[in-house]
């Protein structure tokens, strides 16, 4: 009996040694296979949960059925995004006509996705899982946005699902620009505060730049992962780094990360030279907002 037990442990240790040292693509394929088999259960549970919630909502308020409101909310999100997209198209069109008369531009198509799971099951990362994957044209390193602003970037993609690493995760870094003072910095996640508020931080700001609370932070487009001019958030507090070489600031993400339900992935496509960026989550032309970022 004792020998048998010993043998079990030997075999198990050997298996683990092999598994932990297998090539990454092979492990990834096995993992994606397992995830694919669990995804229908997740979808079913989310559907069940939302169904129950809508029944409760219908019982509470009699006039419009909850399912109808759900559809209208989804439609509104889609239309808002389209309006935002069309506005940027209009601006780009005007500029190009002014400068060149005519220009052919490439489009950034958006992939609408539903959030099927929130948060990493192991709790070591801030992620969401979307119900679309490689079969729908999703690839790793795509920007995820809502009409309010940047949400994060795709990481692991299986055939029917993908994971998005949120901007509040310390593992995600975004090259950013403050348009009002025209300075650049690197945004990285700072997790969630004890009160559950998502936090980000922007580092390496020019020490002479007059950065003020409420300044908008947009993606710069440098680095290639995120298209330019996506709204990341608003500056909350500005500090000088202990070394005195640069400033850093706390940032409030523009997107409501706690209430994500539909997210749009930006299809990676070549950026036309000199053209205005087609995806623009910046809701106004002013470069500084009067709203309190902590609200």
């Amino acid at each position, binding site marked *: 009996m004792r020998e048998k*037990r010993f043998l*079990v*442990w030997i075999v*198990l240790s050997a298996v*683990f040694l092999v*598994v*932990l040292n297998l090539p*990454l693509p092979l*492990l990834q394929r*096995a*993992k994606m296979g*397992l*995830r694919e088999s*669990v995804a229908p*259960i*997740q979808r079913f*549970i989310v559907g069940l*949960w939302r169904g129950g919630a809508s029944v409760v909502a219908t019982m509470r308020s009699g006039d419009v059925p909850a399912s109808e409101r759900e559809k209208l909310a989804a439609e509104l999100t889609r239309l808002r995004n389209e309006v935002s997209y069309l506005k940027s198209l209009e601006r780009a069109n005007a500029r190009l006509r002014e400068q060149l008369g005519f220009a052919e531009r490439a489009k950034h198509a958006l992939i609408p996705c539903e959030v099927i*799971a929130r*948060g*990493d*099951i*192991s*709790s*070591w*990362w*801030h*992620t969401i899982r979307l119900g679309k994957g490689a079969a729908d044209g999703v690839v790793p390193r795509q920007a995820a946005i809502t009409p309010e602003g940047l949400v994060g970037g795709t*990481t*692991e993609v299986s055939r029917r699902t993908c*994971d998005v690493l949120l901007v509040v995760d*310390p*593992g995600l870094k975004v090259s950013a620009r403050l348009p009002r003072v025209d300075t650049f910095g690197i945004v990285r996640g700072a*997790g*969630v*505060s*004890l*009160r*559950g508020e998502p936090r980000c931080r922007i580092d390496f700001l020019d020490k002479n730049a007059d950065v003020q609370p409420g300044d908008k932070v947009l993606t710069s487009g440098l680095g290639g992962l995120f298209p330019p001019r996506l709204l990341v958030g608003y500056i909350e507090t500005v500090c000088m780094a202990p070394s005195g070489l640069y400033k850093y600031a706390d940032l409030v993400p523009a997107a409501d990360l706690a209430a994500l339900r539909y997210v749009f992935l930006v299809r990676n496509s070549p950026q036309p030279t000199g053209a205005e960026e087609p995806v623009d989550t910046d809701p106004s032309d002013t470069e500084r907002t009067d709203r309190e970022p902590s609200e």
Partner: protein
Amino acid sequence: MTMAVMIFSLLGAAVLQALSPSTPLFAQARAPFLLSVVIYYALTREQNLVLTAACLAGLVQDSLSRIPLGYSAVCYCAVGAVISWCHEMVFNRSLLTHLLVGGISGVFASLLLFGLLWRGAVVSAGWEIVLMKAVGTGLLAMITTPIVFRLTDKLDRFLGNVPSEER
């Protein structure tokens, strides 16, 4: 039937763990239902079942998260091994045992998993975050372990998986 109960418990635990809210106070720690299933098998069953439960729980957790495949299984097997080594020395059906074993296992599994992730440069976190998460997981495991133990035990008894002398 034992395997059917195990798979059912693991899937249920995975769903509950995925749906359970994270706790901002403890660095987003989540209720470790999968770990509690492993603890149940480690306290009540022979070693091959403990290892099977630990491996399956690890695979489910890894496939649902960004953790590289195999890391959680290593942690759960280590926890399962330690508990099954000493499960004959404790009152394995006492609530106090479940609370203590749950708490200690939660902290131990969190730290071990972080060690593996840190070694593989998969995650970076400050020591205070790691400590908060470990403590949070331990406290949450103290809640989930007695619940999971009772539910799975009831199911096992209902289906006749528990040997008659233990009834």
